[in-house]
């Protein structure tokens, strides 16, 4: 049973939701790359460089959480197993990126579901970063 008060984010991480049709394979949304957000994130992780920290793009994981919600998988039932970032081109903060998140692979084994999601972050037609996130999820009811 949880006893700590729920943590609330102090600011929104995503902008307008551009595509969230339940039948569409991709959730598309705005991902504002805000200098103040980069600075706050850097401070929390102890990053002292002047660039965008390599893992900053986790800031835009809203699409992954939305897919998990649609799949009926609570956050408490998942374990993050692998993360891959591919950096295609550099961009300075102060722009709005477009994020596209899809479920790229799902495998089931006994009581576990292995899920991989991919998020492409673009500025116009220019691909900036690709993020691949893999989870292990406990299948609801399978333990009974």
């Amino acid at each position, binding site marked *: 049973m*949880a006893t700590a008060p*729920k*943590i609330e984010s102090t600011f929104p991480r995503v902008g307008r939701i551009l595509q969230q049709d339940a039948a569409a394979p991709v959730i598309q949304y705005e991902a504002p790359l805000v200098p103040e957000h980069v600075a706050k994130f850097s401070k929390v*992780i102890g*990053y002292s460089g002047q660039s965008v920290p390599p893992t900053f793009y986790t800031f835009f994981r809203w699409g992954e959480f939305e897919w998990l919600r649609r799949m009926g998988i609570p956050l*408490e039932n998942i374990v*993050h197993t692998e993360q*891959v970032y591919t950096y295609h081109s550099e961009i300075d903060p102060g722009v709005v990126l477009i994020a596209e998140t899809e479920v790229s692979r799902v495998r089931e084994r006994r009581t576990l579901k292995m899920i991989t999601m991919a998020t492409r972050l673009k500025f116009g037609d220019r691909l900036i970063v690709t993020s691949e996130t893999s989870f292990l999820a406990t299948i609801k009811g399978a333990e009974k």
Partner: protein
Amino acid sequence: MITGPLTKSIPAFTREQLREYAAISGDDNLIHYDDDAARAVGFDGVIVHGMLSMAAVGNFVDSVFPPAQFQLVKFDSRFRKVVYPGDELSCHAIPLEPAMEGVQTIHVELRNGRGEIVCEGAASARPR
């Protein structure tokens, strides 16, 4: 050219840092800031976000491949073991044979005080 193994101790994560990271990252899973919720799913108490561990490795990667001299191409991590706040941690890097022309790659590990690998992966960068 990166040569030889590199090692760096990093500060242990604090509970306050986990709360701050939950707020900034949006990963507000209770297992990262509520001991009872973490124990309910089998942990000894709150655990560090995998992505916060990866961020610490990312800081290390940034020191190996300074952005003024290198452009990061790829960075990946597999999360092997749970990290608790207060755990002693260190980052390790070993240069790998180049997989692509003009790109340098290192194998990176985050180890706990018992020498166990808690997360590992690779980072590749291209000299500017």
